[in-house]
């Protein structure tokens, strides 16, 4: 059943208007209540004891001394919640608290609830845990080869968490054509993407209360209240109807809050045990350890292009460093290959990706899940191809356009496609042709493109139930109430849904109250991941709003004794289209409707299309989406050849979001994505030391401890300040997709992808060096410049 679509063409009343986020004033004035702002009477504070070993067997846990401390109310250990869970139902390999083994420095083993945080902190030192330390595997290739040390002993494939191998077309012969055809090229490259983490400013926090009726309420800084609801039920062995999950205001998530975490189970269990509310707030260090950030990828790519720059074949082999648990890893492994087949047409394609368990904090989804890393590799490969062919890199990309209403080589159906317009926009606004010709040595321009999904076509668990739902009520007050399970994590989904409701019901944005992300009050939505909220919850909102709009127009038409077709609702009025002088305030229109139909409410839902989305092969569903966004970036970069410093002066970022329902929000997403991408390219590194304490660039790391995170603070994990952030030109491209609400597609994750390869390609343009292993650090730049000089010297000699 495909999406209800409506009002697909302008002019619009609210859609595309110049409005701010609904919650902006509350956030700016400090009124917005985050989870940690909520305090309940008699509330206790929980803290979690974490493993100092990267890999160890738990021999015993004795909480007696901690429990006896004054101020400690209760303790909890893993044997009280032994059931395994995992956000992906096929890979439940985590426990709320470890019972038998710890698998990374930071794995949770026990927790206390005390009258205050200080007491809880202090009590942790009185929990006695005896470990048998096991060898730690921190290098994925070493872990893959090792069959003696198993991180998950019941795993049937050693330390391999997931392996995916897919091929489309005659790959070997098409690759070989790159060697044999006249003027063609075959480019082989090895790329490394380091790990990075989300660094959301709000740390994870959960508050749980078990009331006298037996209802467990959990407030949590989560982006997936529904999945949290399910996993709480599973692990606590409670029916879902006895659990209520509420997501208060969230201070950033970026994928880092998209699955259940130990603190939610711990707070809930301790609340049940003590009968008192229990809060657990992560320290910044715990946020770094909870992680689920971007996987380190080690990638080998081969690409063949013909003499005209057409992509004959792409072949990729990737090792994903998964960390200690599966998290979303099954999906990540598919995404690492499946999301690469657009926006360019490939003659043939294959990928072979292997995710490996290591004794490190588990990796998961971060903004641009699984596809930011291979996107970096392929866009640099294409840049190398353009230089070999002596072709403009934008022209090479144009030569390989997939176009609209096309099918990728791996069988994904592409609907609207504004990629060509994105390339045009960045070429024009960066003044690419003339600027590029004039730049001095040390200054360069680079380009890259990308695509991303507007939600994944299938739920994480197999179901035919709706993936998104919205309920709307209106009444004589003139107000619209919209209830949704969608999760606003700062990206503005509440505002987007309000825009849709306001557009259909003729009210202003301020007249719509959005009540979201409360599993007792709101219909089920799967949450804020895979860039799904606008398209999926948006379509559900349209369905609900249309039904009510129809009733209001009918009641007004009856009142005016005309056809409902000539009644329009806009600008807080009901108005006759054929005679604009005839109108009544929208509040009066709602009164007419409430009089005619009784209390006014409607529900809408959304299910993704079940045909015309993807190919029919095992794994073909993963990475498929109802609609795809497109992005292109140009970066203007300066390289200091003496210090190796890279300064990104400007990024022009064009993004096809289908339709910008709220242009300011789309611009914000583009700017935030560029910011994050540049940070990952140049600065951020979630660095777990594999064989000791060596840091980046050091030849001989120390021999002592494996699996320690190099820095678990925002001082040691630098994110750019405003002074380190480039000028960003956010260019909105609108190529409406028939499957999107008003044609809208995603904007939250896609625009991150090209920033990284655009910067790296610009560095090549500036000084002629390729940095294929991220992050780009000054010492790597200097080493590459030294190597280039040495090579030139030997060429001259």
């Amino acid at each position, binding site marked *: 059943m495909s999406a209800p679509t409506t009002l697909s063409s302008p002019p619009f009343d609210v859609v595309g208007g110049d409005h701010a986020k609904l919650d902006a004033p509350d956030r700016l004035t400090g009124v917005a209540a985050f989870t940690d702002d909520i305090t309940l009477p008699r509330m206790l504070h929980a803290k979690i004891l*974490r493993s*100092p*070993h990267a890999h160890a067997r738990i021999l015993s846990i004795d909480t007696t001394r901690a429990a006896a401390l004054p101020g400690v109310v209760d303790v909890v250990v893993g044997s009280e919640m032994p059931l395994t869970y995992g956000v992906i139902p096929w890979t439940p390999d985590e426990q709320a608290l470890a019972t038998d083994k710890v698998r990374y*420095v*930071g794995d949770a083993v026990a927790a206390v609830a005390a009258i205050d*945080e*200080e007491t809880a*902190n*202090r009590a942790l030192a009185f929990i006695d845990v005896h470990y048998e330390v096991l060898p730690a595997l921190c290098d994925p290739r070493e872990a893959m080869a090792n069959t003696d040390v198993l991180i998950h002993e019941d795993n049937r494939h050693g330390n391999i968490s997931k392996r995916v191998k897919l091929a489309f077309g005659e790959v070997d012969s098409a690759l070989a054509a790159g060697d044999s055809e006249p003027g063609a090229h075959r480019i082989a490259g090895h790329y490394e993407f380091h790990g990075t983490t989300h660094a959301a400013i709000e*740390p994870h926090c959960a508050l749980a209360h078990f009331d006298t009726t037996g209802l467990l309420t959990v407030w949590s800084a989560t982006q997936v209240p529904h999945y949290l609801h399910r996993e709480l039920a599973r692990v606590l062995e409670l029916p879902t109807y006895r659990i209520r999950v509420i997501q208060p205001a969230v201070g950033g998530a970026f994928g880092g809050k998209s699955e259940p975490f130990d603190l939610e189970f711990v707070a809930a269990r301790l609340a049940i045990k003590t009968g008192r509310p229990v809060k657990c*707030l992560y*320290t*910044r*260090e715990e946020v770094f350890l909870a992680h689920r950030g971007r996987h380190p990828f080690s990638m080998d790519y081969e690409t063949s292009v013909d003499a005209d720059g057409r992509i004959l074949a792409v072949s990729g082999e990737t090792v994903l460093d998964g960390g200690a648990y599966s998290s979303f890893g099954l999906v990540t492994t598919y995404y690492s290959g499946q999301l690469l087949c657009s926006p360019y047409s490939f003659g043939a394609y294959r990928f072979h990706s292997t995710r490996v368990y290591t004794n490190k904090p588990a990796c998961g989804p971060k903004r641009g899940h699984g596809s930011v890393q291979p996107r970096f590799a392929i866009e640099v490969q294409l840049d190398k191809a353009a230089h070999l062919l002596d072709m403009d890199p934008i022209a090479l990309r144009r030569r390989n356009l997939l176009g609209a209403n096309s099918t990728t080589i791996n069988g994904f159906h592409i609907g609207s496609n504004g990629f060509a317009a994105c390339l045009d926009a960045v070429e024009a606004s960066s003044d690419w042709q003339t600027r590029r010709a004039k730049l001095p040595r040390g200054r360069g321009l680079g380009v890259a493109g990308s695509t991303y999904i507007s939600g994944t076509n299938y739920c994480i668990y197999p179901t035919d139930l709706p993936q998104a739902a919205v309920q709307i009520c209106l009444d004589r007050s003139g107000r619209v109430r919209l209830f949704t399970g969608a999760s606003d994590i700062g990206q503005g989904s509440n505002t987007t849904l309000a825009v849709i409701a306001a557009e259909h019901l003729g009210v202003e944005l301020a007249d719509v109250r959005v009540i979201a992300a409360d599993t007792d009050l709101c219909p089920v939505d799967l949450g804020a991941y895979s860039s799904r909220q606008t398209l999926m919850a948006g379509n559900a909102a349209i369905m609900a709003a249309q039904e009510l709009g129809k009733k209001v127009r009918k009641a007004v038409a009856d009142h005016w004794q005309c056809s409902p077709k000539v009644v329009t609702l806009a600008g807080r009025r009901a108005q006759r289209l054929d005679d604009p002088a005839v109108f009544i305030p929208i509040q009066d229109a709602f009164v007419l409707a409430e009089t005619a139909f009784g209390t006014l409410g409607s529900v809408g839902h959304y299910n993704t299309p079940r045909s015309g989305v993807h190919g029919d092969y095992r794994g073909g569903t993963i990475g498929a989406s109802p609609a795809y966004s497109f992005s292109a970036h140009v970066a203007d970069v300066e390289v200091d050849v*003496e*210090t*190796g410093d890279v300064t990104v002066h400007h990024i022009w970022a064009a993004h096809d979001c289908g339709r910008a329902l709220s242009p300011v929000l789309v611009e914000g997403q583009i700017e935030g994505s560029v910011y994050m991408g540049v940070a990952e390219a140049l*600065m951020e590194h979630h660095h777990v030391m594999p064989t000791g*304490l060596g*840091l*980046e*660039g*050091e030849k001989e790391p*120390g021999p*002592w*401890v494996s*699996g*320690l*995170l*190099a*820095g*678990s603070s925002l*001082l*040691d994990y*630098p994110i*750019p*300040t405003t*002074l*380190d952030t480039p000028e960003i030109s956010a260019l909105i491209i609108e190529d409406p997709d028939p499957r999107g609400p008003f044609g809208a597609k995603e904007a939250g994750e896609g625009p991150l992808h090209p920033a990284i390869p655009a910067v790296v390609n610009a560095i090549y343009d500036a000084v002629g060096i390729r940095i294929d292993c991220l992050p780009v650090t*000054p*010492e790597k730049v*200097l080493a590459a410049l030294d190597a280039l000089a040495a090579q030139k010297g030997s060429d001259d000699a």
Partner: protein
Amino acid sequence: MLRIRPIAHERPSSVTAATDALQKLGEHGRVLGGGTDLLPNLKLGTDKGRALVSLAALPGLVGIAEDAERAGTVRIGAMTTLDVIANDPIVQRLLPSLAETVRRIASPQIRNQATIAGNLCLDTRCRYINQSDLFREALGGCLKSHGDACHVVVGSQNCVAALSCDTAPVLIALGARVHVVGGDDGGRTLAVADLYCTDGLAHTTLTQGELITAVEIPALPPTHWVTYRKWSRRKAIDFPLVSVALRLDTCRERDHLKGGMLVIGALGPKPRIVDLKKFKGRDIDAALAAEIGRVAEIRAKTLPNLPYDPAYRRRRAGVEAKRAVLAFMANR
């Protein structure tokens, strides 16, 4: 969140009461100025202090004045905040290098709170110390943190954590002195260069009960020129990963050198001072800049104590020193 363990706090109202309190508390006492370094260290447990002696109520420790008798000599009260120093007209006129240095420290919020004496007394930093309890427990501790091994220089009995303050190098280059009260002598004045020793565990030469009350910077002759260059990952917030202060003493025409010094910071517990007298008489030109850069690189013996590749930090020290000379040439 991280919290400070319950800790004693006193707020004396005279300097004598403060030094007496510090004397009495001995190794457990800590001076609370702006607290921007001390409080995070207490939260992380890297500082084991048990009692705070706040300077907030002490009279006479705030303010900047030019000496009435010695024109050009500037006295800065110990509790003067970095923000005040950066924006002070006297400092901007007479000590632009100090104003520039202070502006590169941390963030506006921290500069509003942090004090000049606090910056000079900043605790040393090391990538094995300035970490969480869990990290240090997993590591097994170190000389500075409940252990007996140094992970930076294996086998060392001496902690080599780095002095990461920005003001010490430039104040040394400026020939500044600090006024100290309390202690066995009752009070003394010492050069900032003599404020530090090579022990990362106790890196200042202040004794128990001693308190800095002011920093005094002598008039800089018009033929002398001082600058400070800092390298950190970001353009704000961060501690230096290596830093260089340069003083050039020139002839009146400002084209050749009569003397000078390089002060390299963020190496070990003490800034490294390099006398430039061997370049006396040399033309100040690109060739000299390159040579001073080479000297800086040779003398900047970086250790793997701060969270960045020491080889790069060393190379960077050379580039920064060279650029400091080039900056003089561009401005003379």
